[in-house]
């Protein structure tokens, strides 16, 4: 078994286990779900704050609720799935797919600017930005 296949196996097990955990337990009201260290230290939302609640909402089919907890998480998910499908296709089924979009200079820059803007705006205390907060 190649390293890539072991990696795919371990990641699949972790994704299934975490998927089940976040399907069964709502992070709201269960104290064992870890709180963001950045939020705990500063009281500000980081770009990842709300991801656990967003995942719970998404697994129960509440897309808009998930986006309200963390818009970045919902927007990034299709790209992460796309990347995972290409990785699995290349290493399990002998395809030679290219992860082209991630290697375009503009894509990385757009992602960076979007994440930084999201981080700043979700902490701005004006009511027009409240929907972005976790």
């Amino acid at each position, binding site marked *: 078994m190649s390293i890539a296949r072991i990696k795919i196996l371990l990641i699949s097990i972790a994704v299934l286990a975490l998927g089940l955990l976040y399907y069964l337990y709502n992070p709201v009201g269960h*104290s*064992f779900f*870890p*709180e*963001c*260290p*950045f*939020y705990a230290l500063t009281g500000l939302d*980081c*770009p*990842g*704050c709300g*991801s656990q609640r967003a995942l719970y909402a998404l697994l129960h089919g509440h897309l808009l609720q998930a986006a309200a907890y*963390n818009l*970045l*998480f919902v927007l*990034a998910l299709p*790209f*992460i799935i796309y*990347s995972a499908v*290409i*990785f699995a296709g*290349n290493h399990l089924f002998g395809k*030679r*797919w*290219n*992860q*082209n979009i*991630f*290697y*375009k*200079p503009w*894509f*990385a*820059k757009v*992602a*960076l600017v979007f*994440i*930084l803007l999201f*981080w700043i705006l979700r902490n701005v205390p004006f009511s027009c930005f409240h929907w972005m907060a976790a």
Partner: protein
Amino acid sequence: MEQSIPPQNTGIPPVRPKNWLVESILVTIFCCLPFGIAGIVFASQVNSKYDAGDYASAEKASRQAKTWTLVAFIIGIASALIWIIIAMTTTFFSAMFNHHFYP
């Protein structure tokens, strides 16, 4: 899979270095730490420097992207584990004390 042939015709270009973009976005979303953002900054440098033909700098940016992504990942996992241990011990002790001393 990550290799693609760049437009330059100056000799044979080296293999395009891994840019760690997806991994750094993942740690930014899940490990809740701004270190992932440093990973994304270097990931974007890998792309632009490779396309500019500066292969040595692209390779260097790739290593830095990897370092920051791993730092964010390890700190994220460690802080989550610490949180879970604290949550479990406080639950355990409060249950124990409530039972024995406040029946």
